[in-house]
């Protein structure tokens, strides 16, 4: 299929982009790599009248260490993240997870901010940000908002953004007390996971964010607590029952729950040291 006609805008600054977004309102969509939006437009599932391409916004680029966090511009592409020495050193879980995100061609175009803004429940990045306790820096007409990843993902393709653009992500720099685990189950490399989990252990506490299992990247507080209490694995996995698992063609909710448990066990087994 071919997309219906649309206007294409290429703002040179974040302010200009926000002004365009305000002007066109619901008719406009920001373009941040296009790895999901372009197919949706060609399928005529999305039909924005105006596309605002964020490709030229220097404010949305760059990776820098700011104290105990690392700041990553929203328009950073996966390929850039994978090649960045600071990211590798300070966010070890990205080294585990990023190779699972789609394929080279998509990682060359797809951006971290684009993935977050889309909030696909099967995508890796939302779960990674929740596990890492990251903060989303959003810029809107009323200024900057810092939104905890835990408060950002509101449902399937639904976020806390309100006429704003994601400017950057702030991720805590890994400490010596932390260990990281990641596992996802896909039949083919690069597919959306049937179930996956990102685990960050800080001393004896855990943040475990599941993806591909429900309507959004999902943490289960009881399960994290059970891990902290070093409950036996069967008891830990029982808490997966708190998740409202998705049914689809590839796996029903029973299978998904089972696979989420396997992913968690394998992530814990493969934690960084």
């Amino acid at each position, binding site marked *: 299929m071919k997309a219906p006609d649309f206007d294409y805008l290429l703002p040179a600054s974040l302010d200009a982009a926000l002004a365009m977004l305000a002007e066109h309102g619901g008719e406009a969509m920001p373009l941040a790599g296009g790895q999901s939006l372009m197919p949706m437009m060609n399928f005529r599932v999305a039909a924005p009248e105006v596309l605002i391409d964020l490709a030229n916004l220097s404010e949305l680029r760059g990776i820098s260490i700011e104290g105990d966090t690392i700041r990553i511009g929203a328009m950073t592409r996966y390929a850039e993240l994978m090649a960045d020495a600071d990211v590798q050193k300070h966010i070890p879980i990205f080294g585990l997870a990023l190779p699972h995100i789609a394929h080279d061609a998509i990682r060359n175009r797809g951006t971290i901010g684009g993935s977050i803004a889309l909030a696909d429940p099967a995508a890796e990045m939302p779960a990674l940000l929740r596990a890492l306790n990251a903060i989303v820096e959003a810029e809107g007409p009323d200024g900057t908002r810092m939104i905890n990843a835990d408060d950002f993902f509101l449902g399937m393709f639904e976020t806390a953004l309100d006429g704003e653009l994601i400017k950057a992500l702030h991720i805590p720099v890994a400490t010596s007390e932390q260990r990281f685990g990641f596992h996802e189950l896909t*039949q*083919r490399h690069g*597919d959306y996971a*049937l179930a996956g989990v990102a685990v960050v252990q800080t001393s004896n506490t855990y943040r475990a964010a599941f993806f591909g299992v429900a309507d959004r990247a999902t943490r289960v507080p009881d399960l994290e607590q059970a891990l902290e209490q070093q409950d036996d694995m069967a008891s830990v996995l029982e808490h997966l029952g708190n998740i409202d698992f998705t049914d689809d*063609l590839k*796996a029903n909710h029973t*299978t998904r729950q089972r696979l989420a448990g396997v992913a968690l066990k394998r992530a814990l087994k493969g934690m960084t040291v």
Partner: protein
Amino acid sequence: MTGPAHIFDKPNRYIGKPEPRADAARLLQGRGSYVDDQKLPRMVHAAFVRSPHAHAKILSIDTEDARAAKGVIAVYSGEDLAAHVTPYVGTLTHLAGLRSMPQHPLAMEVARWQGEPVVMVVATSRALAEDACELVYVDFDELPAAVDSETALDLEAPVIHPELGNNLAWERDMVAGDIDAAFATPGVHVVEREFRFGRHTGVTLESRGTVCDYDPSENQLTVYYSGQAPHMMQVIFSKHLDLPEENIRVISNDVGGSFGIKIHTYGDEIATAAAAKLLKRPVKFIADRFESFVTDIHARDHIVKAKMGVTEAGTIVGIDFDDLTGIGPFSMYPRTSAIECNQVLNLTGAPYVMENYRAKGRVVFQNKTLMCQYRAVGHPIAMAIADGLLEDAARKIGMDPVALREINLMADDSYPRSSATGMKLDDLSHKRALRKLTELMDYDALRDERTEARKNGIYRGIGFVSMVEVTNPSPMFYGIGGAPIASQDGATVRLDAGGALHVSSSITEQGQGTNAILAQIAAGVFGVDLNRVKVTTGDTATTPYGGGTWASRGAGIGGEAMLQAAQALKDQVLEVAGVMLQTGVETLDIQGGAVTDLNGTIRLPLADLARTVYYRGNELPNDLNPELVATRHYRVTDFPFVFTNGAMAAHVEVDIETGFVKVLHFWAVEDCGRVINPLLVDEQIRGGVVQGIGGALYEECHYSPDGQFLNATMADYMVPMASEMPDITIAHIETPTKTSVLGAKGAGEAGTGGAPAAILNAVNDALSPMGASIWQMPMTPERILTALDQAD
């Protein structure tokens, strides 16, 4: 008769050599010319409004807004085109009792599958045509749909064609011996399983498409066609668009894969031709991926209840099965949708000596996309039934599956003979192939490794298949039943003035290297260097008349025609050379582009000979009429089909926590007779195996209970990808067919036909320690977990 050995054995001969294909560089550099690359003056674009329902009455169609939309040239309903296109029915007389109903390019009154074209919009761009499609208002009255093949014959099932009374399209019973008595014999173990084979489809890299260009000044229709059978399409366009056959030219330039998808009559393509005729200008239609999923023919869709009886000593006493297959709402035109079921009935158990056989096939209509012939028609079903039951029986009587095959495979020296179903078999090598396979894979070591791994909770399995493949079909396949499908093919070889050969053939290139083997045969048999051969295929105006490339017939039939033509031209050229050199023809040969002595000494370069003939005929005797072009045609006469055989094995690991299957290695030993180019044959086998793995593990067209196709995207429909594919080791046995001098049988479908059974057997071997087994394809993680849960 076996061909004279010298054709193949001389130095500098190309038949059997791993020559790189000449067109690879062109295709890799993006210089290919596919249908969508055709851009003609005044060309306009078609898009279709398709039925959103599996079954619905069309109450009214309002096209007013669409006609007024930007860029729109024309809007056609089914009724509009019915005045210009005669309907077609997918039945053939040799499939006795097969029923279908007339089909129109666009649905008339009732739409019978989700995706059926209903309204055609022609506009100045595809995007504008799609815009206008959104402005077409069709008032549908949704009808109950017959979706599930298992209930399609129930009395209360919605009847898709009321004129036919029920949804049965065709049925056939086949009986040999006395299966009940055989199974009741004391000491006979009977295994019984219900197999389910999901629907899948071809997913060609280049989707279906056509550019149709009509010139009213000559009443001439030129069709750019991404497909496999140009001459067949010429007849179809002629017959249904009321144009003389000779006024239709079908051109297939590069074709990006077909797998049997592009050999049928699709309403959107016929409508495109009709629109071109009505508008008197070129019209392009390129199916997008969504359209491909809901309109390209689907394959398989079988439910089979099957039994095999085996004695304690391991002799197969017989097979008994019932195959139910769903084909969508019509039998596809012109090849019909009964061939797949017919092949299952004909081929099941064909490698094995077997006295008793009973099979029932039923083909039913349903409100889904049409099902028809796709790569390895019926083969994966037939092989999975026989070899799945065979390995099940082996487990039951505690015998190694290879040993059980050794007992039952037809002996290599027992041909010619017939199978239990009456198939005429010759020149097969099942036992040699199986032995070569077990050596190639080091079966004994692999078995030990499997046993060792199980101790560590790693569940690996080894599975085999011994298989046959139907290739080189004779007129008994289609022509006998009235289909306008040639079973013979032609080749023309022309010596040009510069000493190069220009050859043409009626078989077609769709990415598999047809042109490369044609050049190898011509160069090798005639005696020029390979780079001095130019090949033309895929054009009804410039090639000899023939069937095209399908049913693994290109190399065997088209290749033999090329061999015969090259040999004929060689004889003609030597006759001229004999006169020019004042010597007997028997003392001359052609090698490396020159007429030579028998010992290879150059006597006369071909360019000199040709230039003399073409430019300076005055130097030749007046009674010599040099003919530097030769054409020959060839068809298979002694057999309905030329069977090939193969033995394959899969090594898999099943993750019993997740149900994931990893194929660790695959081996194939294939006997396709004379191998013309081992590189190409190996890639055919390899690609076929990958498609077979797709059917076994990944690919499935999912439908909702009301007939909605649920996974019509490349994200949701899983094709096999390179990362997951195992190394595939290939070896050959060459038992040339006696039906031709070339001796080549087909190789294109073996992998697809055999791999699913081998994977099924390997998975079941891996699951056997848990007492679990699975009989449904694709074997998805969820289905494997369910099988494990249900283990005894």
